[in-house]
């Protein structure tokens, strides 16, 4: 079952950089596209598709900046390391040795837990700014996360049980040979639970009480600006793609080439975009209840039925 492990060689570094570059650009265009779609729903033109690049340059171009301390300074570094690391720890393109990147370092569990690396570092950085809204945003985010992670963990468990492996490559391999081999069809409950969890982790409505721009300025990043913000913007583009790649590999048959990856990532991303433009915002306890009542039973069902 277990495929031969890819090992490290120095060529992995340029390939990894290439992966990051591709995903970075794709992520920037994609976030803009999603914003544009949301604007179209509101019958606006929306931002130009390259607007995010301009914003990024603008943020790097700011001449002054302040820092609240070491952790504040490191927060965005943690955040972006989390995004880049996640991307590189997961085999991006199935069957491609070049784009398996550093997936030899660990399996699904590494991806599952490395997601928190950026969150934790960012939380530390935001908290050091001393801004109460940052702290409030973090409590909301973390609270919501505890409930949102549960169905995902259950789904992952179900999938791992289903394929009897924790290796992402093996899980993708098991789904090859036709659309009907995807986990989506072989284990629909797990996928349903995971997709609900996915909604909760994308920071889009109805689960965006963390940022809540009208209420607690924008939560954790209230104090962040200039190049700090630029790094976080980069992560905002990169990280969802990396996360979706994990979802895609686990549930939607992975991708054997970049175009397939672009397509699948786009479609999965659209799920949260669709939900986001339609629903208003949940309060924290509402979203916790929502996950526990709707998503968790599906996850349990998936685990039990496997």
């Amino acid at each position, binding site marked *: 079952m277990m495929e031969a492990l890819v090992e490290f060689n120095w060529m992995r570094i340029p390939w990894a950089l290439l992966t990051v570059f591709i995903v970075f650009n794709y992520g920037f265009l994609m976030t803009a596209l999603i914003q544009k779609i949301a604007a179209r729903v509101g019958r606006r033109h929306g931002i130009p598709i390259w607007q995010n690049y*301009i914003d990024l340059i603008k943020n790097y171009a700011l001449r002054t900046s302040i820092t609240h301390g070491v952790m504040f300074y490191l927060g965005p570094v943690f955040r972006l390391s989390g995004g880049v690391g996640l991307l590189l720890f997961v085999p991006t393109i199935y069957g491609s040795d070049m784009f398996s990147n550093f997936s030899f370092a660990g399996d699904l569990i590494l991806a599952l837990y490395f997601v928190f690396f950026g969150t934790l570092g960012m939380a530390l950085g935001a908290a050091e700014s001393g801004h109460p809204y940052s702290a409030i945003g973090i409590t909301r985010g973390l609270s919501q996360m505890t409930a949102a992670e549960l169905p995902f963990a259950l789904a992952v468990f179900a999938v791992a049980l289903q394929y009897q492996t924790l290796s992402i490559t093996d899980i993708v391999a098991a789904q090859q040979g036709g659309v009907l081999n995807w986990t989506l069809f072989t284990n629909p409950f797990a996928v349903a639970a995971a997709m609900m969890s996915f909604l909760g982790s994308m920071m889009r409505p109805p689960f965006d009480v963390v940022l809540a721009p009208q209420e607690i300025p*924008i939560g954790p990043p209230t104090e962040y600006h200039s190049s700090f913000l630029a790094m976080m913007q980069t992560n905002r583009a990169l990280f969802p793609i990396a996360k979706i790649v994990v979802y895609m590999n686990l549930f939607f048959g992975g991708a054997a080439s970049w175009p397939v990856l672009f397509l699948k990532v786009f479609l999965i991303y659209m799920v949260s975009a669709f939900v986001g433009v339609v629903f208003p915002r949940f309060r924290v306890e509402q979203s916790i209840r929502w996950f526990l009542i709707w998503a968790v039973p599906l996850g349990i069902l998936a685990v039990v039925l496997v």
Partner: protein
Amino acid sequence: MKEELLKRIVKTPDGQEIEVDPLLDYYCQEGPTVQPPAYTAIIEKLFNWARSESLWILGFGTGCGAIEMRPLMTPRFDAYRYGIQWRPTPRQSNLFVISGYLSTKTLKRVIRSYEQMQGPKYVVGLGSCTINGGMYWDSYNTIKRLDDYLPVDVYIAGCMPRPEALLAGFEELKKIIRAGKAEGANLYAKNFEWYKANQKSVIHDWDMPDYNW
């Protein structure tokens, strides 16, 4: 001076008594400095272009004109397509729209917020009141000339100007930025004493550090 800003003696956990001077201890004492542009002109040009195409407005309705900004977000005007968006925190904004009359009390908050924005930053005065006091020309608590207190890049006249006028104003601002003439932040730093003196002449209970980082 407000009571919470007065110097006070507190007892440390090990029983020592120390003096806390809130203004000195809680706030950074540095003043603003003039920030040079990028080393190479072409990069500065690129940066200026990016700055002009990415105007992030501080969402702070300082006067009645704030109501004229709302339509800009709607499908009819849709300012987003010009790279304009509203940010909830001064840290991330670089355009401050003073929307209409500005009372001395609000002025204090405006100064604080302006100083908390990171340069380069721009100020747009909206409506006659910011230009010469408008209909509040004889009011005891409304300033008459915004540029006495903050460096203003663009004034948009009218009482009130329509959203279209705002859009036109923003376009004007973009031109200024692209031309590299929107150096309000540096102006403020250069003439810091003058601005402070003006500000303090109307704000009688100055209860903050001279520069709010």
